Structure formats: C-alpha cells, structure tokens
C-alpha cells in the first residue's frame, strides 16, 4: 500500500494545508496539474485567462489541460522547453488579463529520486491573485556560482526561498523544478510575502512575490494551491512515463476518446430543451426523446454523489488492459453513483482501500490516470470519499 499524500488548497487563513489523504499511483504530472489548477476556481473562471506550465509535461499537454479545465485550447500555452520557474513566473505575472502558472516536479516519478514531487499552481490578476512586486535576473552561470545541484532542501530563512533544482528526469533533459522551497512559502511559514530565488540557466532570478495582496482575499478563492507527494514510495513500481505503444485490450479510438474529454473529465452532459432530460455522456442528441436541436451543455456535480452499487474487482476479473494496474496496486473497487436525476456514472475508486465505499456513501470525482492505450495514457474521473459529506446531488 503506497503512503498517502496530502493535497489541498494551501491558502487557508491559518496557513495550514487543508489536508486530504490520497494515495497516488494513478497520479502524474497532468492529473496533479489539473488538481492544482482546479483549486484556483476564481482565477480559472476569469474571462481571458491564460495558463502557463513549467516542468516535465508530455508534448501536447496544453490541449488536454484546456479540455480538463473547460478553457478554449488557445488559453493554455504550449510548454516552453527548459523554461525556468522564474522566467515563467515573470511571464505569467506580467499579463494584463488574469493568468495561471502551474509547475510540476516529477523527480520522484519512475523512481528517479527521493525528493518529494507534486504540482503547484499560482494565480495572478484579479482581486484575489498573487502579485509579483519586482523581479530581476543576475546574469551568470549558477553552477559557477556554486549554487546549482539537487540538494532538494530549500533554504527558507528570513523569507528568502531558494527554489531547489534536481537532476534531470531523463538523461540529457532539463533539470527539474523543485517546489518544496516554494511550498514552504505558500504554507505560511515565511509569511504572505516572499522573496524567491531561482537558479535559472540564464542566471540567478530573484523575485518579490505578494501572495495575499487583497483585503478581500478569502480561502474560497486562493491565489495558490499545492499538491505534494508525502512520500516518493507512492511511486514504487510505477510504469515508465511513456506508455507502451501497443495496447492489449478493448479499443477506444484516440479520436473518439479525445472528442469525449468534456464528459470523461468534467462530467459534461446535455440538457434537452424539449423534454428536459439530461444525456450523459454527451451524444449530440437527447437519449430520452431524440431531439438534437438546442441542447445545452450542463456540468453534472462532481461532489457529493450518492453511491448506488459497488463491487471489488479481484485479481483475474479485470479487463486485460488493467493487468498492469492490478500488478502494481492490486484489486480495485468500481461503483455506480447518481450524478443527477436520471444520470448515473460508472467510476473506479481511488485513494482508499477496495471495499471502503459502500452503497449509500457519498463520493467526489477526481481526474486520475487510467490505462495506457495506443501509446498514450488515458485519464478518467475516479471516485474518492466525499469531502462534502451528505450533500444532496
């Protein structure tokens, strides 16, 4: 059993992590980034918002991030190779419209290191966003300055946070971005304003970041969120980052899967103006009356869904494409939950031991990694115990 990680919005008034125990063999750069960004709903919902990434993302992640967040594809910028955290942060903070920065630290993925890993998101602009008061870059080679390397331990004395850098995830790749230093700032141990020092390839980047610029700031609309691995052992036995190109199992064509991302990742349904019924997943026509005109998109709730049926799929009863998951993590639970009047969803359970969820319980749906198919990872919403308790769906 992998160790739990804790994840949640960092910015509660007391400065603690609002912890939520999860196990993470089905988490990766993409799911962590989505979780971090979803913790900043106010900024993410701002008109004209743009999103930037730092870290080891797969090519094309911008399209998937946009789909997962319900943003137009152009809102998420393609990853910039070898971009430093400081440079990306300056760029994000310099936008006129609200913007989001999401950084991923994947050093522990694939068993490459012992440092914690996770994703962090910062929101800029609007009344609640963080503000970069000033920044400058001191030219020079960090390795010559004697400050490079992968100690993994941040210095956070006197409000100065050094962003630790680790070894490359892949041989010859860029150094990874360390987030534990910034996390120390965000969790409040060094106060709402922080000096960040980043050992960027172009030199020493120094920035003054104000994390709570507004008097109207509230925990409901935090400027930053962090998702961190509690222990790298959660990654033990993980498959390689790149999935096999040949998949053994039932086939959902890539184009079909991608066209359904809004339903798979955000519970997008269609509401029929003629009969009022909902159709999930979206199919372009009402499944009750057949009407195909004037259907409106509706996001089904993703929290507090009531469980109507459960089963634990034991070793050998899984579809063959789940063999690897069973090998690594053992048996798993699958349930049916009611998402809305007339709409049920089928979800695999994550984070808790199989059998932990029963009929009548409430669950939340979180985006997680599922299985490799046709040379890429497939993702889906999975069920975790509801944090909202008994909320009517």
């Amino acid at each position, binding site marked *: 059993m992998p160790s739990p990680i804790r994840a949640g919005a960092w910015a509660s008034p007391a400065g603690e992590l609002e912890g939520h125990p999860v196990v993470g063999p089905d988490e990766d750069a993409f799911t962590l980034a989505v979780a971090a960004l979803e913790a900043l709903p106010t900024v993410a919902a701002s008109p004209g918002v743009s999103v930037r990434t730092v870290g080891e993302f797969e090519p094309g992640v911008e399209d998937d991030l946009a789909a997962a967040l319900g943003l137009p594809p152009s809102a998420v910028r393609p990853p910039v190779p070898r971009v430093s955290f400081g440079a990306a942060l300056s760029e994000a903070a310099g936008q006129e419209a609200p913007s989001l920065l999401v950084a991923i630290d994947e050093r522990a993925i694939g068993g490459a290191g012992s440092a914690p890993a996770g994703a962090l998101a910062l929101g800029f602009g609007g009344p609640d966003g963080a503000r970069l008061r000033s920044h400058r870059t001191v030219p020079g080679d960090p390795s010559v300055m004697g400050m490079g390397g992968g100690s993994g331990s941040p210095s956070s004395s006197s409000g100065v946070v050094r962003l630790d850098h680790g070894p490359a995830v892949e041989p010859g790749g860029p150094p990874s971005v360390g987030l534990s230093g910034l996390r120390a700032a965000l969790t409040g141990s060094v106060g709402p304003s922080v000096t960040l020092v980043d050992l960027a390839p172009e030199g020493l980047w120094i920035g003054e970041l104000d994390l709570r610029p507004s008097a109207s700031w509230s925990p409901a609309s935090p400027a930053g969120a962090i998702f961190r691995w509690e222990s790298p052992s959660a990654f033990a036995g993980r498959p390689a980052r790149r999935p096999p190109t040949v998949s053994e199992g039932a086939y959902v064509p890539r184009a079909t899967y991608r066209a359904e991302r809004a339903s798979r990742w955000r519970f997008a349904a269609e509401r029929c103006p003629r009969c009022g019924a909902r159709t999930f997943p979206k199919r372009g026509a009402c499944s009750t009356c057949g009407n195909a005109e004037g259907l409106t998109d509706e996001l089904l709730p993703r929290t507090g869904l009531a469980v109507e049926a459960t089963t634990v799929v034991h070793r050998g009863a899984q579809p063959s494409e789940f*063999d690897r998951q069973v090998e690594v993590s053992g048996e798993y639970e*699958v349930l049916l939950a009611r998402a809305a009047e007339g709409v049920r969803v089928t979800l695999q359970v994550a984070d808790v031991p199989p059998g932990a969820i029963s009929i009548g319980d409430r669950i939340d749906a979180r985006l997680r990694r599922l299985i490799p198919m046709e040379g890429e990872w497939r993702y889906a919403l999975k069920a975790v115990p509801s944090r909202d308790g008994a909320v009517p769906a």
Partner: protein
Amino acid sequence: MTRRRAALIGAGHTKFGVLPDGPRALLRQAVDGAVASVDRGVERSAIGEAFLGTLGFAGWQLGNASAVLAEEARLPGVPVTRVENACASAGFALRSGVQAIESGARDVVLVVGLEKMNDAPSTRRRYWLGVSGDTEWERMAGLTFAGVYGLMASAYLTEHHADPDALAEVAVKNHENALANPNAHLRKRITREEAKASPLVADPLRLFDCCPVSDGAAALLLAGEEVAKRFTDTPVLIEGTGAGSDALALQDRASLTKLAATRRAADEAFRRSGTERRSVDLLEVHDCFTIAELLALEDLGFAPAGEAAALELSGATRIGGALPVNPDGGLKAKGHPIGATGASQAYEAFRQLRGEAGSRQVKGARRALTHNVGGSGASATVTLFAAV
C-alpha cells in the same frame, strides 16, 4: 392463430468444457448430431437456410464465419447468416430461424451456436471476455461482466434485503443438475458452504457464482409445423418467441435490478404463443452468474420483485420442485460457450419435452421456456416450446 408455426425436429450438442476440438470440429459434431437425431432422417438437401450464432471469441473468423458452417455442415450453396448478439447470439439465431419458417420462406432450417474459448492465452481471453459490454465507459472503469453483475448483485441484495445464501443455492442446484448431464462442463457436486467460501471474483460474487469459460456447440433443426411430421412423430412445437433490447451500459438503464430486455422478450413470447406462465413446466434461464438467475425469475414473471431469492431457497426450482430451473445445469455448471448457449438451451427443451432427458428429466414436462441474454442485458430473447 393462423400463422404457420415452427417445430424442432432434431437437436445436436457437443460436450461443453475445455475441449481439444477446434471450431470446425465442434460445428461438425453438433450438426451431425442434430441430423442423426431426426427420427425418420433428413436429407441435407432439404435444409433451405442456416443461421450461425457466434461471437468469434478471441478473434476466430470475425468476418464471414457463415461460410465455415456451410462447409462443415456440408450445405454447399445454402445461404447462411451469422448472428451476433454476444451471449444471446444463438438465441437470436434461433429466432431468425423461427421467423424464416413462420414467414413461409423456408420449410427446413438449421440453427447452430458455437464458441471456442479455451484455445487463447489467458490475457487474450480476459481481453475478449468483456468485449460485449460497454467498451467506452463501463470497461474504461475497469469492469468486465463479472464486475457488472457484481454491481447488479450488490444493488439487488441491498434493495431487497435478500438472503445472499440464495446466490450459493443457485450454484449448488445447478451443479447438482449438471451431474446428470453428460455434456456438462462442471460435473462436481458442491455444498453451499463451499460456494460461500470460494474466492471473491467481483464481490458479492465468488468463483462459484460464475459460469466457466467453455468450448462447445449445439445445433437445431427446425421445420414448418405441417412438414415436421414427415421427419418425426414427436416434434417440439415452438409456440412463440420474443425479444428485446436495452442500453448497452448498466449506468444508462432505468433499473439496476431489472432487465427491461428480458421483460419485453417474455411478454412478447407469451403474447404470441397465447400461453400463460402457470402452464410452463421448466425454465432454461441465462445464469451466467448466479445473480442473473434470480433476476431472470423476476423479469420473466415467475417471482415478484425481490422474491426470487426466497423461491430458490425453498427448493422449488430444483428438479422435482414446483418450477424446475436449469435442469441441464445452466450456464453455471453445464458451461457457457458464449455463442452456443441459446442453441444449447433449446436442445435441453427438445430433450425434456420428448421425455429424453434421462435422470434429469422433469416428469411430465409439456411446456418449456428458454431465456438467452446478451451482455449484461443489452439484448434478450425468450422462446416457448411445447410437446405435441
């Protein structure tokens, strides 16, 4: 009722189990058996058309399998149509055969069900075992049919506060019945305690709640009612068939504990045959998992909602009980070669209604019902048979 009716004049059945024979040999054995069973004989040239029910498990001859049946049945030039409705393939092939005769298009029709499942490695078998479920959503959550029926069982037991011992009892009964069926895959008596102690597969379903993975084939010869007497003095009349469909995925169905496709199929079969449920002497129902037998009894109209469990525990469904269910051992113990099952059920009806079922004979059986389900309930067909 003035419509022409169809009758069974012969039926053949291979052994079910892990067999050395390949698909062609199984087809040949089943068809030869059916031809040999016709009391006064039948020339193959009399067969005007054939229907083949098969999934093509593990990828066997996914296209144009019909031609293989024409070859192995020695029916050169005869039109053959392959029917695929997952586990209900042969049930729907039978329905097509019945319709060909009822319509007057043909006088003699061959219907065959086939599946060869044990010649693929286990990974490939598990790949194929769920292919008739909803691939895009159910399977992507990690479910095969054991998991889907596990969900239905959990909902059923909770909704009706049903005694879970009823699941084990279905397994015990069907294993007991299979002891008297020389064609059955699992011929081993089990106890309720053994069933309840068997390993979990998809809880609450355990290993002994699941049908085995079987090879096998069954063949049926149908003739128009008025020509049937040329071939035998004791044809078995097909009084009516019914069929229905439902959403592919469980999440899209109105109920988790009722199969709408079965209900529609049963209602149609009874309506077309003009018979009533109380006149049925035995049922052959689709018990791919023990929970499916409970659901079938309710959906077919032989037990009120939630009461099938008590009916099973009362012993009424055993041979010699008031309503024998699956006297041949059912899918559970006789075995379930996916595409063969619907034809195998009709074979049992043929034997029972002619009094040829040996030590598993239901005494005085005059009317039988067969019930064949595709997937977890996306399709279903019901057929009513009567002794003449």
